[in-house]
């Protein structure tokens, strides 16, 4: 029986989970694709160095680290010039159901207007499907704060996005 190579195990994790994690990072960065890749790469590199200390699934740990890093990335963000890649211009809308279309830019722009912590709460709750307790633990805040931030975040998004889309059942 060969010993498990920690590098190959981690490489396997990165290879298989990067897409899902990048999507979380993309929302946490409010649609800034380059920032999302930077954020995810930074977090994964740090986790690589600490992986021996992470017991259990790596993914919840990484998601928690992503959410916290995104909420605290003011140092780099303040120096970053927001860019809109050419290939992101005039992308087709997403959704496309009969009730109306919520444009991707509209979604990410709306997320971008929220405080970083509130955005992280919404992404963890509704994109990563974490419970209120897990979201609170991941972000180091109380479940009460998760509830209030969720309620206010949804309320804010309702006002920012086309109302029929968010209230449609």
């Amino acid at each position, binding site marked *: 029986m060969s010993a498990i190579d920690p590098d190959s195990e981690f490489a396997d994790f990165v290879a298989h989970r990067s897409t899902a994690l990048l999507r979380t990072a993309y929302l946490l960065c409010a649609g800034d694709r380059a920032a999302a890749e930077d954020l995810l790469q930074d977090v994964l590199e740090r986790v690589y160095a600490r992986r021996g200390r992470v017991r*259990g699934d790596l993914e919840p740990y990484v998601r928690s680290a992503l959410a916290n890093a995104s909420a605290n990335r003011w140092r780099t963000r303040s120096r970053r010039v927001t860019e809109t890649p050419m290939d992101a211009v005039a992308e087709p809308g997403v959704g496309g159901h009969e009730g109306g279309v919520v444009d991707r830019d509209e979604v990410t722009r709306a997320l971008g207007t929220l*405080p970083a912590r509130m955005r992280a709460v919404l992404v963890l709750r509704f994109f990563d499907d974490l419970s209120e307790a897990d979201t609170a633990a991941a972000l180091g805040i109380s479940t009460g704060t998760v509830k209030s931030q969720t309620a206010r975040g949804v309320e804010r998004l309702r006002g920012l996005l086309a109302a029929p889309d968010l*209230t449609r059942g």
Partner: protein
Amino acid sequence: METTETTELSRVLRAATEDIEPRTGFAPDVLRGGRRRRFRRRAALSGTLAAVVAATGISVSTALRGDAPVASAPSDASGNDRSIPMVSAATRGDLAGDQAYLGAAEAAFRAGLPATVPDAARVGAPHVYWAGTTPAGRAAVVAWQVTSSAITGDDGARILVTGGTNGSPATDLKHVYEEARGVLVGLVLGDRPALIGLRVAPGGDQDGPAFLFGEGDRFLLTVNTLPLSMSTRLSVGPDGTTARGWTGMTEYDGAWFGTMGGPVVPGDVRVAYRPGAADMRNIHVTEASGPAGHPRLQRDFPAPALTGWPTDDPIRLGGSQASEEVAGLGLITELAQAGFTDPIEPMSMPGFRLIADVPGGGSVIAVEYAPDFAGGPRLYLGVRGLGPERWLFCGPLDAKAVLPVSVLLPDGKGRLVAALGAQLRYRSTVDGAWTDAGKDGAILPATATQVEVTEPGQAPQMVTLR
């Protein structure tokens, strides 16, 4: 919030990301970067230790813990993890050879441990990391590795150890997600030693906690291979910016000791290696009890007393929908950038937030925040859309004042006033007519000179504005 609504939100978020894929070569880049970081970190640690040895002659007999997985860490005869110096390094201090005292210290540590740390969570045996004679008497620092694997909270989260304030267990559960292992570090004091303080050092890091102990919290003791300094208070200048003065601690062969020059507020005491430098390390200060008391377990200082106004959600005057932050960075981060928070381990929770739109454009947010324990809550004003976005210091906050919040806005844009629950009126001349300003708070014209505050069931009180 309706389920259908949140379901739709989930769908919208997923749809917005469905074609997001990592760039080609992302995974190899991560591995290369991770290896590079680990190499740099180890090189930095080796360099730091070499510098310490060269500068002080301190012998570092054990390597710092690396990144090896728990399962592969070698153990000594007691079953202690050799990669964790706190539970495996040779005992230091002038009492290191006093086997009777070491035995008594270990026994005191075992006897003082709370039942909330289950046997299954303990690894190996207690280890006396340091034992010596200090100005506070004979003392020892004893460590015992624990693992979180055996402890699971009600919500399924891993819990490393339980411990409440004032030694009452099970009231203050600590969820530890980042570390699979930790070390209980206890301070044992006296000729007939007793455990007086206990804390978890996450992950078995080489930095143990700093124990504040003795009558009036006069003494400070911690163990570390690096030279440490202590700061007893935070000073807040007239403009609200903060600063700390530092005093070098005295070394007792691996332990660092400090004596307070006068009364201190325990929560304001800080210990650090190279404070202010890029490689600064903050050493967590924990308050131990007196020798006659019970050990204080995982003792965290309670948050500073605030006014008591609601803190969960901001108070929005006039239905303002403005953000809680000025620059979208998080309140504490923004206050830190403005120089208003403690440079070392700042308080993380603000008090009330009062948000109002300014007539003519822009908005303000008044935030209650206590940067330290000694000075109590203070008021800060975030300004948006009125010139440059910025934070201003408004001074101490007196919750018992008739009108606790009364702040002139920049550029004569008005005055923010607030008294939660009260009806407010104002006027701009001494004998002028009163104008209703609504309930809780408002932005008044800058020319307002008097505010009438009427608490429910109380007679109106008049406040002259200055």
